[in-house]
């Protein structure tokens, strides 16, 4: 404990830090991807008043491991006539941006792999790679369904990238920084200091959060915007030709992206690792403070993850024109209004 405390306060030796965060983030994402599937299945079941997985392990807790073992033991079929290189690269290309972006997320006071000054920019720079991955996967599959799905995904993601970035620009103007750790530090204190409730800067702040959340759902191809994998229309969408762990990695990447999106929403709007009750529980530093920070971060993040599952099992898939209408006719104008409003408010009252 003492040694750990010393390490945290004095800064970690660079190679150790690198390895630790690499392993940590990989393990975290892997475990989360596996167990978010479990959460999703259990959640889906409960929303439909079924018990969900119960057979493998207590409450089906070993189900993800069994699934992973099954997927890994399957052959990775590369169909004849596909672009084999792109076909193999696409799942990795989907997974890696999420992993890289998680490096700038501040999990707790001193717990961020890298506190990059342009962290937010980095996340969105990597975030747009993910569209290309689905596109490549669909294109290289040499399959009609996959190509149709890929085309839809691209137009969807382009449409939703705009309001998302407008919202993020609003947030950058409000906070004045792109450093995620800095953004969290600004929201110190009880929950009314969170950006979500900073209505004196921008009265439309909760709306901004909603737009961000909706765009996050669309960017991660989650229901009701799951055009990428529209089972009922396009077999398995862009992933039709994938088998075994190729499909598994796409699946994991989906959950990794959800995790990243929820983590980002937590950092930007819900005060990151800050306690919602301020310093009511004291203001511990060091290991204890970090643990508490992680705790609050996870509470907020997993609440958002649960909401994602909740939304998925509540709403049917939107039709494609409905999806684009929502973005171009509602989200983009509203996010422009929030951008304008907050810039005017900042200019007038918060100079």
């Amino acid at each position, binding site marked *: 404990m003492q040694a750990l405390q010393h390490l945290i306060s004095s800064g970690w030796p660079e190679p150790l830090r690198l390895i630790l965060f690499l392993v940590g983030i990989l393990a975290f994402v892997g475990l989360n991807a596996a167990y978010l599937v479990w959460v999703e299945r259990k*959640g889906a*079941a*409960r*929303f*439909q*008043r*079924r*018990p969900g997985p*119960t057979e493998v392990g207590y409450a089906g807790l070993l189900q993800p491991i069994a699934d992973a073992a099954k997927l890994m033991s399957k052959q990775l079929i590369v169909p004849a006539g596909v672009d084999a290189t792109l076909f193999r690269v696409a799942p990795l290309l989907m997974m890696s941006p999420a992993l890289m972006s998680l490096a700038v997320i501040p999990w707790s006071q001193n717990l961020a792999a890298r506190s990059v000054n342009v962290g937010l920019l980095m996340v969105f720079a990597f975030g747009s790679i993910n569209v290309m991955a689905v596109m490549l996967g669909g294109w290289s599959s040499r399959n009609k369904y996959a190509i149709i799905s890929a085309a839809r995904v691209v137009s969807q993601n382009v449409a939703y990238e705009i309001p998302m970035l407008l919202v993020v620009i609003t947030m950058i103007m409000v906070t004045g920084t792109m450093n995620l750790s800095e953004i969290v530090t600004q929201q110190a204190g009880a929950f009314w200091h969170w950006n979500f409730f900073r209505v004196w800067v921008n009265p439309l702040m909760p709306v901004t959060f909603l737009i961000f959340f909706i765009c996050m759902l669309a960017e991660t191809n989650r229901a009701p915007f799951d055009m990428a994998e529209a089972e009922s229309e396009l077999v398995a969408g862009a992933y039709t030709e994938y088998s075994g762990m190729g499909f598994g990695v796409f699946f994991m990447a989906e959950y990794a992206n959800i995790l990243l999106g929820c983590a980002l929403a937590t950092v930007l709007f819900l005060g990151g690792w800050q306690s919602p009750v301020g310093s009511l529980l004291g203001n511990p530093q060091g290991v204890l403070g970090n643990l508490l920070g992680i705790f609050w971060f996870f509470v907020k993040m997993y609440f958002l993850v649960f909401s994602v599952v*909740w*939304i998925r*099992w*509540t*709403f049917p898939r939107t039709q494609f024109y409905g999806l684009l209408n929502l973005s171009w*006719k*509602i989200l983009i104008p509203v996010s422009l209004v929030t951008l304008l409003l907050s810039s005017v408010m900042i200019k007038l009252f918060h100079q």
Partner: protein
Amino acid sequence: MKNSLKEIATGFNSLITGMRITIGQFFKPTVTVQYPHESLKMPDRFRGHIELVRDPETGKALCFACKLCERACPSDCITVEGAKLDGAKKKSVTQYVLDFTKCSLCGSCVEACRDGAIRYSHAYNLASTKKEDYVMDLFKRLEDERLAAEARGEIIPTPAPVVAQASPPASSAGIAPAAAAPVAQTAPPTAEAPKVDQPKPVTPVQPN
């Protein structure tokens, strides 16, 4: 502008309503019956294959091998043998073979029986890989059950489990028993008597 704002408001409201409903369902108990581990109790008027009715006083079968059921059966799936035991006034059944592979569950036998000595059982987990499992001696099963109950120190005629088809022992015409634990469930109302001319069993019938 006004219309589109109104549309946004109503749309948002409907989304919230939907989410409220689903979260309400989320916290309600599940309704699934985990089949191999538990199964539903069949309603009282479920018409499974037939079984012999026990005399509530002696614990033996009520049937005295009049063979009316055998004659009534359109598919010839019932074979009854009886014998007159020493000192008894009536014959009593010694063998009652039901070939369930042929039975179409028409119920003519139950209708034909004048003394209410046979009735429908509540057995429904009747899966097996062997054809022989479906040729069952109902009398032997009844006796085995009685003997097993006596071995456990219970007296079968009174009070409760008169004719229960609860997990037949492997020796009796073995119907592959699905491990069945009855689910606590209220039985459907049994106010109206079955149409068949037969006294209703007074004792509660155990589920399979």
